[in-house]
């Protein structure tokens, strides 16, 4: 089985287990403030790492390329309070233009 199929099936199965677990356990189980705090910080840590790696890493090398420029454009658009689709399309257009020019 390819890496693609393993990741699709594995992540989907575990995602459903987590959802069902939450809907099934007694409420006081996970109600600890520390669990809540860590849970709120996990997406921030992982999303930040995903932004960094997907814009500055090429396998195990650090690079500055057209993707980096696209993400820089996305940051500018977010600071200007642009909505999500504009941010994504803005990044794509910036990256595509640089890709085609260079």
């Amino acid at each position, binding site marked *: 089985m390819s*890496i*693609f*199929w393993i*990741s*699709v099936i*594995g*992540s*989907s199965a*575990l*995602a*459903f287990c*987590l*959802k*069902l*677990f*939450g*809907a*099934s356990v007694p*409420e006081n189980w*996970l*109600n600890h*403030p*520390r*669990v*809540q*705090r*860590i*849970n709120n*910080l*996990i*997406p*921030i*840590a*992982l*999303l*930040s*790492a*995903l*932004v960094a*790696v*997907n*814009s*500055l*890493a090429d*396998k*195990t*090398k*650090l690079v500055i390329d*057209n*993707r980096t420029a*696209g993400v820089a454009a*996305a940051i500018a658009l977010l600071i200007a309070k642009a909505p999500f*689709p504009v*941010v*994504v399309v803005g*990044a*794509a257009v910036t990256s*595509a233009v640089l*890709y*085609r020019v260079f």
Partner: protein
Amino acid sequence: MSVKRDSFSVSFTVGLYGSAFGAAGIASHFSVLQTCLLSLLLFSGASQFAVVGVIGAGGSALSAIATSTLLGTRNALYGLRLAPILKMRGLKRLAGAQITIDESTGVCLSQNDEVDQIKGFWYTGIGVYIFWNLFTLLGALGAKAMGNPSAWGLDAAVPAAFLGMLWPRLVDRKARAIAICATLLSLALTPFAPAGVPIITCALLAILFGWRA
């Protein structure tokens, strides 16, 4: 605003982002079928982007699954929060669990009485499910038709989508501090660790920063 209108506007708007995911899947060399299955089965935006983001960056299946699963832990806590309101049993609990995501939880909890809360959860969850999957398919087919993902900037659309999901969460100093640390740590580890590992390692920062209030 009525709960129906709330649910519909959230469903449609969020559903549209599904096209960005569809394109991201293709840009990371997933097939149209695999991309659509992620939306149908995994059905949690950030986790889905994580799967294609980690694999696209050259990571292993294990790193992709671990990153995606950690991003899905919040759905478990949503389920916990919603259980006393929804009081689901049997098959309904299975269906309800699948649509327990940011949006269905948000609309549910923003309603004033219990009847509207229950409606808000189901309308929004089902609505997002329909539109998200529809637009995933359209995005994937569109990206497939375009050919080379880099020539259309799709490789930059993936980190931009992560950034768009991250940005509203950077509300206080602690959030911004952990974001900066995770950025630096993941980049520092990149030359030394197999792809995917620098990302998942940053989950440790959440434990470190969240241990004390």
